[in-house]
C-alpha cells in the first residue's frame, strides 16, 4: 500500500508556520520566532527564484523549437539572460579576488539597459491607460461607466495649469472629488479587500485552501 505523506506533512507545516507567524504580530513573546521563520521564508523565496529562472529558460527554449512567430523574442531572452548571468558571475569572481564589492559591469547593464527599457515601458503604460479610459464608453455604456468617464475628465481638467482649464470652479470640483467620493470609495474598497484577505488567510490556516498541491 502506498501512503502519501506529502499532503499531511505540507499541510501541517503550512498551518503551524502560519499560526506562529500570525501569533508573532499580536503576542510579543512570538516576535523572535516570527522573524526567524520570515527570514527562512525569504531565503527559500530566493531559492525559488533560481527554480523559476530554470523554468523561464525551459519555457523559452521550448518556444524556440516550436514554429512560432514569437520564437525570435525567446531567442533574445535566452541570450540576454545567459549574457547577464555570465557577466554577474565574472563580477562576483572579481569581487572575491579584490575583496571588496565590484559590480561595475552588472551596474552598467542595469543603468544603461534595464532602466531605460523599464522607463520607456512606463511611458507606454501612460498611452495605454489613456486608450483604456477613452474606450470605456465603447465597451460598456452604462451609468457607472458614464460617471467614471466624466469623473476622469473633470479630475484631469482640474489638474491642468493652462487656460482655459484654469477656471477656479474646476479646481474646487477636482479637490472635492478627490477628498470626498474618491477617498470614501477607496476606503470602502480597502475594507472589502481587507475582509476578503482575512478570510483567504484563515482558510489557508485552517487547511481548507491548500495552494501547495494535494
Amino acid at each position, binding site marked *: 500500500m502506498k501512503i502519501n505523506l506529502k499532503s499531511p506533512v505540507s499541510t501541517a507545516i503550512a498551518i503551524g508556520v502560519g499560526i506562529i507567524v500570525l501569533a508573532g504580530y*499580536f503576542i510579543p513573546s512570538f516576535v523572535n520566532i516570527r522573524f526567524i521563520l520570515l527570514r527562512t521564508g525569504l531565503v527559500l523565496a530566493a531559492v*525559488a*527564484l533560481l527554480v523559476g*529562472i530554470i523554468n523561464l529558460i525551459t519555457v523559452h527554449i521550448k518556444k524556440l523549437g516550436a514554429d512560432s512567430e514569437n520564437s525570435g523574442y525567446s531567442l533574445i531572452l535566452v541570450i540576454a539572460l545567459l549574457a547577464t548571468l555570465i557577466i554577474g558571475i565574472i563580477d562576483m569572481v572579481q569581487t572575491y579576488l579584490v575583496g571588496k564589492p565590484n559590480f561595475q559591469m552588472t551596474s552598467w547593464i542595469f543603468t544603461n539597459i534595464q532602466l531605460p527599457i523599464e522607463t520607456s515601458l512606463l511611458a*507606454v*503604460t501612460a498611452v495605454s491607460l489613456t486608450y483604456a479610459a477613452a474606450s*470605456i464608453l465603447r465597451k460598456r455604456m452604462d451609468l457607472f461607466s458614464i460617471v467614471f468617464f466624466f469623473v476622469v475628465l473633470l479630475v484631469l481638467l482640474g489638474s491642468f495649469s493652462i487656460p482655459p482649464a484654469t477656471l477656479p470652479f474646476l479646481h474646487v470640483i477636482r479637490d472635492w472629488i478627490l477628498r470626498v467620493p474618491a477617498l470614501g470609495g477607496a476606503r470602502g474598497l480597502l475594507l472589502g479587500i481587507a475582509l476578503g484577505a482575512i478570510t483567504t488567510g484563515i*482558510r489557508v490556516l485552517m487547511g481548507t*485552501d491548500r495552494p501547495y498541491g494535494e
Partner: protein
Amino acid sequence: MSATGFTGIVVIVLFVGLMVFFSFINKDRKTYNIRPIPAYDKIIQEINVAVEDGSQLHISLGSGGITGAESAAALAGLGILKQVIEKSSVCDHPPVASTGNPVISILAQDTIKGSSKAISVSDNIENPSGELIGVTPFSYAAGALSTIRNDNVSANIHTGWFGNEITWITTAGERQSSPTIAGTSQLPAQAVIYASASDPLIGEELFAGGAYLGAGKMHQASISAQDVVRWIIIFIILASVLLNILGIDVFIEKILAGSM
C-alpha cells in the same frame, strides 16, 4: 499585549467562529443564495466555450509573491486557477497559467499537478502548464502578451497582484476580441481594470472566487462571515458619526484620557 494585538486576535477569532458556524449550519444545504457576480458567470461560460470549440483558457496570476501584502491576492488567484483546472478537465487543450513570481510559479505548477491528479487527467492528454514569463511587473506584462495573442486562447482570466501594467494585458485581450476577466487587490490597478477589462472583479470580489466556482462550503461560509463583519463595521461607522454629531465622542475621549 497591546490594544492593537488584542483587537487583531478578537477579529481573527470572530472570523474563525463565524466561518465554522456558517459552514456547520449550511452543511446540508444544496443551494446557496449569493448575489450574482457577472465575471464568475463569464468564467463558467468561457470554460464551456473552451470545451466545445477546443480552445484554451489563459490564467495569469500577476507578479505578487507570498511574503508581502500581495500574498492574499496571489492565493486567491491560485484558488481560482484550481477551480478552472478542475472544471475544464475535459478540454482538448487544458488552461495555461502564467505568473511573474517564481514562488507563485512553483505553487501554480503544484496546484495544476495536484488538481490534474485529483480529477484523473490521463497522461495522453496534454498537461496544463504553469509558466514564469518575467520576474519584474513590466517584463511579466510584456511576456504575457505573446500568450494572449495565441490564436488558440479563447479567454483570459487575470487574478492576482497587478499594478498599472495590467492595462497592456487587458487591452491586448480586447484587441484579440477575447473576453477578459480581471481582478486585483491594488486600488489604482482596479480603476484600470474597470476601464479596460470586459468583466472586472472589483474590491473583495476577487476573494470570493471559491464560493462562486464551487470550491466548497467553507468558501461560502467565508462570504457569510464577511457579510456579518461588514454589517458590524457599518454599525460602528454610523455610531461614530452619530457620536461625533452629538459631540459625545469628545466626552468619551476625555473619560478614556482620565481628564474628567
